[in-house]
């Protein structure tokens, strides 16, 4: 589910970068205000644990095996914001060190997995973690986290105009559903094993989770649902939506490419590219500024 570079169309990855950057800044400040920096080793080690855990195979019959993704487990152990921050760091390291996922596509991957995925996974856990339904809550959370991130990724690919005939979509959704169930099973099995080892390690009630987090989590689940619905409707429908919104790459490249005259192509590309780069620089500047402002307000 890590989308590489050059799969998403420019407006899609740029928009997601624009959304993810301030979101991550906010998460950092929130994680930084919840805990002082002495919790950073715990966050880091838990992140390393999730990374390493992804290597352990869980046999799920018929010769296949799955592995843990870890968003819901982290949310259980650390709380939503720290978990999202840790997942962001993991995704960034995966992109740079392991070329798993693109660099320009980091905004998309972080949004799908670290933000929406973790928040969606957190929601059931928040509501039911102190009740008798805790195990089910954790299971549902894990399932949701995978379904939401996968659906969003699918939706983004479709909007970008990546061709996906109906059978491919159906198979992909089926695979997502399977992975989601596996994630649920592994997460709950590991949580139970941990509690058997040492009952105190996983907190039963999250220390702090304001209304904002609940709202965000709900939005994440809804977004995931939208992504899922979009993905399951006919592919042509998606492309039409994408084209109408001007998001699909088709509108960008097919029209000018059909007309191969250098002059027009050159100037229109330059205009678009410089506009694009200027836009990115602007977004970057705004995020930096916003981040500093937010930070200042907190200390006041």
């Amino acid at each position, binding site marked *: 589910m890590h989308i590489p570079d050059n799969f998403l169309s420019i407006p899609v990855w740029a928009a997601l970068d624009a959304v993810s950057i301030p979101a991550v800044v906010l998460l950092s400040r929130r994680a930084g205000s919840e805990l002082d920096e002495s919790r950073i080793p715990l966050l880091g*080690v838990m992140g*390393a644990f999730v990374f390493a855990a992804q290597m352990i195979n869980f046999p799920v019959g018929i010769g296949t095996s799955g592995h843990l993704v870890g968003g819901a487990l982290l949310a259980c152990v650390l709380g939503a914001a720290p978990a999202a921050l840790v997942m962001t760091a993991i995704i960034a390291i995966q992109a740079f060190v392991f070329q798993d996922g693109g660099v320009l596509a980091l905004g998309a991957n972080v949004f799908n997995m670290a933000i929406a995925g973790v928040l969606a996974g957190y929601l059931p856990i928040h509501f039911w973690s102190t009740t008798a339904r805790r195990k089910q809550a954790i299971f549902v959370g894990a399932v949701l986290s995978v379904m939401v991130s996968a659906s969003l990724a699918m939706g983004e690919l479709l909007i970008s105009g990546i061709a996906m005939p109906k059978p491919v979509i159906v198979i992909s959704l089926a695979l997502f559903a399977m992975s989601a169930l596996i994630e649920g099973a592994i997460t709950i099995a590991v949580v139970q094993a941990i509690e058997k080892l040492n009952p105190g390690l996983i907190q039963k009630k999250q220390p702090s989770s304001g209304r904002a987090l609940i709202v965000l989590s709900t939005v994440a689940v809804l977004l995931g649902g939208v992504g899922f619905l979009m993905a399951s409707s006919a592919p042509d429908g998606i492309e039409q939506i994408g084209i109408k919104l001007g998001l699909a790459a088709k509108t960008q490249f097919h029209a000018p490419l059909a007309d191969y005259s250098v002059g027009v192509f050159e100037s229109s590309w330059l205009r678009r590219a410089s506009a694009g780069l200027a836009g990115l620089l602007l977004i970057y500047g705004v995020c930096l500024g916003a981040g500093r402002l937010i930070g200042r307000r907190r200390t006041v």
Partner: protein
Amino acid sequence: MHHVHVDSWSQGKSVLHARDPRAKILTLLVFLTVLATTPADAALTLGIDAAVLVAGILIAGLPLLQLLSRAMVVLPFSLTFGLISWMTGDHLRAIGLVEKSYLSAAAVLLIVGTTSLPALLNGFEKLGAPRMLVLVAQFIYRYLFVISEQAQHMRLAASARQGDPRLHGKGRFRAAAGALAVLFARSYYRADGIHRAMLARAFTGRFPLLSSLHFRLADGLFLLTASAFLIVVRTQ
């Protein structure tokens, strides 16, 4: 493990290794952005981009074939979607997907192969990345291999018991969960140990960071000429 290669590549010495990480990060972003806007059949542009990468790899003294084959990690994904695109008639996108995602991966490898991750993270922090994120990433990277090794040992131990007839299906599932739980507990207590070591050395609650990056003329020149070259090539 692959990471060992990238890690040792980044310990080398060359003009590229010596460049400030910020210059390299920004150049990488320019390269990737220019590549993203390049149409799939602009063969000359793509060819020059590839040549630039190869030149960079050679200048940096990195093993060319190893790096190029490492960049192939991205191919399973892009070939699959490329095939599907081809079959739906979108030949251009199919080729583009495969070519460009491969070049992107190679470009990232070039930068990571000439910049140690701590230096890279330092560069990101100076470019404005949130402090918490950078610190967490530093710690993840520090303990990633230590804990992975532990996980490897557990896998070996588990597979050594593969022949146990009592363990099948559900049993093996539970065994794997148990192994993860043990790994979790050890990691959790390791974090405890780290915290104590921090306290013992008068940790004040805020990490003191050594900032030793100096953006020099050479770095500026590198960034400007590389970016200008890539953009000019793109517009031809």
